[in-house]
């Protein structure tokens, strides 16, 4: 008996992570908040720890209009150009 495979087909995809920063002292931070209740407050609290402990600077808060959809490509491109690292996460 022969069965077709029901899973997705197609070419193997190569995914990679951004390289880790060698150090975080003095780096510029971006915050990507997802629009959920308390998300900006929670993420800013975290960013403030980096400011206090590592002399980082908070450059910008980027927002998603839809918490459950991927961030728009232009938002990510803008953040990549403007900050050294981005803090994001679910706030609820």
């Amino acid at each position: 008996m022969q069965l077709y495979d029901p899973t997705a087909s197609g070419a193997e995809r190569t995914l990679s992570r951004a390289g880790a920063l060698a150090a975080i002292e003095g780096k510029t931070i971006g915050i990507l908040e997802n629009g959920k209740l308390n998300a900006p407050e929670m993420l800013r609290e975290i960013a403030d720890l980096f400011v206090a402990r590592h002399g980082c600077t908070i450059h910008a808060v980027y927002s998603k209009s839809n918490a459950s959809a991927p961030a728009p490509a232009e938002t990510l491109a803008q953040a990549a150009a403007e900050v050294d690292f981005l803090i994001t996460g679910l706030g609820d």
Partner: protein
Amino acid sequence: MPFDSHRIHDIPDDLLAAIDYCYEQGWTDGLPVIPPVLDRVHAMLAYEGRPPEAVIATHPATTLQLTVHAAAVNAVMAGCLPEYFPVLVAAFEAMDKPDFNFHGSTASTGGSAPLLIVSGGYADDIGMNADVNLFGPGNRANATIGRATRLILRNVFQMIPGISDKSTQGNPGKYSFCIAERARGNPWPLLCQEQDYPEGVSSVTVFAGGGFCNVENHGGNTPEQILGSVADAMANYGCITLGQSVVILAPEHMRIVAGAGWSRKDAQEFLFAHAKRSIEGMKSVGKYRDVEYDKQHGPDAHSLAQPGYIHRGLGPDDILIAMGGGDAGGHSCFIPSWSRGRGSIMQHKPIGVCIDCN
């Protein structure tokens, strides 16, 4: 010829062992599947004009793609007959529209399930149930088209419970959630007509449904009484949001509403106007948010949005109303949107025809 000879599994010629093999591969929803043997998949493909490698939908986060072929394989596994396949294809074309956001609505803790509502003659052509036990078991087309939707989400898009599907509780519709709009005795235009498809063209509407709420009313005799009980269900504190709604009116309720001369638009406006909670009430349960109130009462506010209240949805058009179910019984239902807002907007597509494609 096989579509992709590298993705064929050669197994012993034993049907029960093949069913077990599908379990072992992690290809099922927990229930046994029909092993996707080649000739059954080819028969399914015969109902689609595009080549097997044509892409129907793409996952926005992972870029995994649903091809016609993969859809056919999963349709066979769910138990679909080939003539059901155009409904399944149209459903995923609708879900592929960005505003449906099928990644979020299938990954979220909210646990929604895609509800498919088939409208028009095609539902009768393939023997769908729009009548007694509408949402229940017993009809092959309803059950297997809905089930195939789930199998595709699981097998193709890898929405695996506990890994990429993080539903806190899920809902029973995640096994199968597919109905037909009842045409027999329906006093209103069918959804496919309201959607402006040409005469004779059927449609499927997809909605990320957050569950099922029965609305019982055997005592009401006026549209206001019947729809008042529906509006109360829509405004319960557990699910009132700015999200959309689906209301399936039982024929008994429809006779009261339409018999008094009410149109679909009249009913939508009544439900929007009455499905509401006060700001104080929303605050009392910790669910009030300024941004949501402002969105509903800003410059684009609908004229029926009452100051001081949060209504369900942004306007009457956010409430889909259709008729379905058996003749007897004052049991309608309200199906809330996924989660807390407008993360997914319902979509529709024609079945088996290409109207707005290139």
